[in-house]
C-alpha cells in the first residue's frame, strides 16, 4: 500500500482517519499532483464507525435547513449516487416510508414535508393510513399516516470506503494502517505526526477525519470548540428470508436527537432493525447490550411483527461521533495548514464525497496548490449486492454458501489494493462469514484459503 518509506517522505497532505470520510478525501486529493497519505490507527480502512453504518444513502430531507449538514448531505447524495454504480458499489433505490404512529406524529408530517422542501427536496409526499398499509402490508397495526420519500436509497456501506481507498491507492496515495496518531506538531513548513506504533510522518497540510477521536487531534493542535461524546447505535440484522416483508425503508418520525429506530432492507438482501441511540463515555464500547437488543425487538414487534419470527443473522453496535453541537464541526486554520472535519455522524456516508470537496476547497484556502492530474485511474469492484450479478452466477466455486462467495472472490480480497488482513476485512470485502451460519460451514475452509489462524 505504501510505495515509499513514509518516514523519508514529506507528504503534501496527510489525512488522519481511514473511515469513509478520510478515504473520500484521499480519493479526491489523489486526483491532483499531490503526495497524499491516509494515516489509520486500525489494521484496515473502513473498519471503525464506518462499518457499523445504517447503510442508507439519504436525500437529506430531514436535515436542519441551512446547516452544513443539509448542504453537504444533498451534495454528497448526488455525487455518491453517480459514483457508486461506476465503482461497483451496490445501491438500490428502494425509497422510504416515514410512518406516524399517533395523531400527533401524523400532524407533524406536513411540517416535515415543508422542511424537506426547505432542504431542497421536493418529492416527499404525505399519504393517509390506507396508502401506508397498501405500500407495506406487513406493517403492524396503529399507523395513522405517513410520508413517502421516494429517493432514499440503500447502499453497501462496506464497499464505499474501500472503493475510495482503492482508487486513492490506484492514484498513488499511501494508506498507512496500524498508525495510531499520538501527537501533531506544526512547524514552519512541515507538520510532524508522531504515532504510537513508531514511525513519524511528515506533511505540509493536515486533514482531521479521525471520527471518534477527532476532538483529541483538534486539541493536540491547540484548538478547541467541540468534544466528541459517542452515541452508540445497536443494530440487529435479520435473515435474508425476512426480505419479502418490506419494500421500502420504514422510518419513524425523527426527533432532534435521532432519526429513530428504522427497519430497512439492505443491499445484501437482509432486513436491518435499529439503531438505538445511547450517549456513552467510552469511545471503544462497541458492544451490544441486553437492554439495547430487547428494546429494538420491542420496537420491531410493533413496526413489523412478522420480522420477529425470523432468525437473526447479526447484532452489532456502532459509535456515532456526536458532539455538543447539532451540526458538523468543519473548520480550517491557515496558520496551521489544517482542516478539521469533525462531528460527522451517521450521515457521513452520504456526505462523504461532498466532505471531500469541502476539505479540498478549504485546503486551497489554507494555501495548498492543487493541480488536477491530466489522467487519473478509476477502479471497479465486484458488486456485493443481491441485485447485481455475482461471480457464483458465472460458475465460480462457492466457499461461503450462505452469502454465495466464491474462492476467487476470497483470493481477490486478499490481494486487493488495500488487502484484507483479517476475517473482518474479508467479510467487508466479500460478505464471506456475514451470513446466517456465521462460519458453521466455511470457517475452516476460509482459514485454509487465507492461511489465517484463529488461535489467540
Amino acid at each position, binding site marked *: 500500500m505504501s510505495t515509499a518509506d513514509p518516514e523519508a517522505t514529506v507528504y503534501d497532505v496527510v489525512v488522519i482517519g481511514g473511515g469513509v470520510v478520510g478515504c473520500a478525501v484521499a480519493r479526491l486529493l489523489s486526483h491532483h499532483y499531490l503526495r497524499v497519505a491516509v494515516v489509520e490507527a486500525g489494521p484496515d480502512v473502513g473498519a471503525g464507525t464506518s462499518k457499523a453504518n445504517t447503510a442508507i444513502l439519504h436525500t437529506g430531507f430531514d436535515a436542519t435547513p441551512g446547516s452544513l449538514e443539509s448542504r453537504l448531505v444533498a451534495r454528497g447524495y448526488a455525487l455518491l449516487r453517480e459514483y457508486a454504480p461506476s465503482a461497483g458499489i451496490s445501491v438500490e433505490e428502494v425509497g422510504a416510508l416515514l410512518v406516524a404512529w399517533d395523531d400527533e406524529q401524523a400532524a407533524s408530517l406536513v411540517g416535515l414535508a415543508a422542511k424537506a422542501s426547505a432542504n431542497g427536496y421536493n418529492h416527499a409526499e404525505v399519504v393517509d393510513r390506507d396508502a401506508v398499509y397498501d405500500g407495506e402490508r406487513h406493517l403492524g397495526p396503529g399507523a395513522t399516516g405517513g410520508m413517502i420519500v421516494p429517493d432514499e436509497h440503500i447502499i453497501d456501506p462496506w464497499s464505499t470506503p474501500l472503493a475510495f481507498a482503492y482508487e486513492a491507492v490506484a492514484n498513488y496515495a499511501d494508506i498507512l494502517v496500524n498508525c495510531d496518531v499520538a501527537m501533531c506538531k506544526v512547524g514552519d513548513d512541515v507538520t510532524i505526526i508522531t504515532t504510537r506504533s513508531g514511525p513519524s510522518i511528515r506533511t505540509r497540510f493536515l486533514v482531521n477525519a479521525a471520527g471518534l477521536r477527532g476532538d483529541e487531534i483538534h486539541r493536540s493542535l491547540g484548538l478547541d470548540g467541540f468534544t466528541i461524546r459517542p452515541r452508540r447505535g445497536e443494530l440487529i*440484522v435479520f435473515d*435474508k*428470508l425476512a426480505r419479502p416483508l418490506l419494500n421500502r425503508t420504514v422510518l419513524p418520525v425523527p426527533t432532534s436527537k435521532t432519526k429513530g429506530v428504522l427497519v430497512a432492507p439492505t443491499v445484501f438482501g437482509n432486513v436491518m432493525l435499529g439503531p438505538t441511540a445511547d450517549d456513552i463515555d467510552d469511545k*471503544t464500547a*462497541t*458492544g*451490544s*447490550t*441486553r437492554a*439495547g*437488543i430487547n428494546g429494538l425487538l420491542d420496537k420491531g414487534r410493533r413496526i413489523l411483527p412478522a420480522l420477529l*419470527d425470523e*432468525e*437473526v*443473522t*447479526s*447484532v*452489532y453496535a456502532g459509535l456515532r461521533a456526536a458532539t455538543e453541537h447539532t451540526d458538523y464541526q468543519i473548520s480550517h486554520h491557515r496558520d496551521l495548514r489544517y482542516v478539521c472535519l469533525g462531528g460527522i455522524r451517521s450521515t457521513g456516508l452520504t456526505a462523504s464525497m461532498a466532505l471531500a470537496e469541502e476539505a479540498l476547497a478549504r485546503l486551497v484556502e489554507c494555501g495548498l496548490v492543487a493541480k488536477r492530474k491530466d489522467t487519473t485511474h478509476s477502479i471497479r469492484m465486484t458488486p456485493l449486492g443481491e441485485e447485481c450479478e455475482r461471480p457464483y452466477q458465472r460458475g465460480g*466455486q*462457492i466457499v461461503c*454458501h450462505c452469502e*454465495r462467495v466464491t474462492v476467487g472472490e476470497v483470493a481477490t480480497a486478499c490481494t486487493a489494493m488495500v488487502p484484507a488482513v483479517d*476475517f473482518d476485512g474479508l467479510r467487508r470485502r466479500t460478505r464471506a462469514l456475514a451470513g*446466517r*451460519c*456465521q*462460519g*458453521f*460451514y466455511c*470457517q*475452516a*475452509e476460509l*482459514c*485454509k484459503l487465507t492461511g489465517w*489462524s*484463529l*488461535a*489467540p
Partner: protein
Amino acid sequence: MTPVERRVAIVGGGPAGLSAAIELRRLGVRHVTLYEREQQVGGIPRHTNHLGFGIRDLHRVMSGPRYARTLAERAARAGVDLRRGAPVFSLDDVEADAVVLATGARERPRAARLVPGDRPAGIFTTGSLQQLAMAGQRVGTRAVIVGAEHVSFSAILTLHHVGCKAVAMVTPLPRHQSYGVLKLATATVRRVPVLTGVDIAEIVGRRRVEHVVLTDGRTVECDTIVFTGCWIPDNELARTSGLAMDPTIKGPSVDGTFRTSRDGVFAIGNLVHSVAAADRCALDGKSVAADVVRSLA
C-alpha cells in the same frame, strides 16, 4: 413410464441424502442424481472425529469420517450420479420427477441467540470447531461451552484434541440434555463443571475473548467460546420453494411418508428433525425411497 425409468434428484449429500440415493438405486430407479454444494459428500459426520456412527443403519460402530466415507463409497458403487460442488438455488433448476430435500441443519451461532457484548475473535460453533480441528488448526486455550446437548459433550472431546481446556459448560436449562454416560465420559472425566440454570449475559473482549459474564453475575475467564446445539434446519431452499413450513421445527411440514406440501417433493433428515443422530437421518433416507417410488407409479 414405469417408476424405475423416472428421474429422482436429491439435494444434500449427508447421511440422509446418501442413504436415500443408495436405496433408490437398490429399488431400481435408473436416474438418481445427488446434488451436494460442498466439494465432498458425507455431511457433518465428515468432521466428527469420534466413534458412535453407523450403529442403527449399518449395524457397526465407526467414526464420523469413516462413516461418511462408507456412505459415499456405497453411493458411488450403487451408481448414484454424485454432483459435488453443485449447489441448488431453486427447485426449478432441477430436472426430476421427484425431489428429496436433505439439506440438514446447522447450530445457531452467537448472533442468532442474541447474546450481547463485544464481538471479538474466538467465538465458534461445534461445527466450525470440528472442522478446524480436522484441519489441524488451534483455536484457543480456555473455552466456555454454551449448551449441554449431545453435541456439547462432543465439543469437550474436540477441544481436548486441539489442546484447548474446556473450563465450563453453561446451559439455561435446569439439567443437561444428554446421556448420563456421555456426560460421565467427557465432562466428568475432564472435570468440566456443568453450570445449569445460567446463561451468558455478556461477552467481554475487544480483539479476543477475555471473559464471559454469566446471568448469575459470575465471571468466567476464557479466550474461546463454543456455541453448541440449538439447531435450525437449513431451510432456505424449502422456504423459497414455497413449501408449507412447521413453525416449531422451522423445517417443511411433512406427512408420515415425508411428503411436503408440494407434489413430488419430499423432505428427510435434520431438515425435518432438527436434530437427530446421523444414523437416524440415514434411516429416513432408506425409508423415503419406497415412498418416492410409490409416488412415481
